[in-house]
């Protein structure tokens, strides 16, 4: 348990990259990039967790409760927004790429070489 969350984050990162490397479809590749990014959320929140802590939201908890780290949560929020927007932008590129190249298979894209 002491390192499991960290290792899971590493696994997610690697499996996502594996998907990117072997992808035969750019839409799938963008999905894999989203998977890769989720490793960063997992690692961030795992790092900020404290046993027996609760969320640092004091509307329904006393202000002296033992809390988990709020900073990593704010960072993870930012990170999620970044991930969603990058996905949107890349998908927009894929849509146009399909129109101009007639394919979404990275193996078939050959305009830029050397």
């Amino acid at each position, binding site marked *: *348990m002491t390192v*499991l*969350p960290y290792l*899971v984050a590493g*696994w*997610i990162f690697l*499996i*996502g990259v*594996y*998907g990117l490397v072997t*992808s*035969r*479809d750019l*839409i*799938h590749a*963008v*999905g*894999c990039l*989203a*998977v890769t990014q*989720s*490793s960063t*959320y*997992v690692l961030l*929140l*795992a790092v*900020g*967790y404290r046993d027996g*802590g*609760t*969320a640092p*939201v004091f509307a329904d908890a006393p202000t002296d409760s033992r*809390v*988990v780290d709020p900073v990593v*949560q704010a960072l*993870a*929020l930012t990170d*999620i*927004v970044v*991930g*969603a927007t990058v*996905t*949107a932008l890349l*998908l927009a590129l*894929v*849509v146009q790429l*399909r129109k101009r190249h*007639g*394919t*979404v*298979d990275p193996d*078939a894209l050959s305009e830029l070489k050397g």
Partner: protein
Amino acid sequence: MTDALIVVALLLVAGAATAAVLNRDPVRQALVLSFLGLALALLFTFLQAPDVALSQLAVGSAVTPLMILLTVRKVRRRPGSDDGADEPAGRER
């Protein structure tokens, strides 16, 4: 007991991530991604991060898969090709 929840959620997340990568058809992948989004939201709640869980829920289980589906729909809508969801992507040249 919290630890048990966290471990199960972690394993679900790892499994969903692997499944999302290994499902090479984007439509299938979109559904798995949506599952991954929910699993992450659960994990984040167990890690005492409801704010992040809400965010992940909204983005990961709704907006991202929807965008992928829309992209697939656009990309597969070609003259002479039917709208089959399970059509392998490599076939369209």
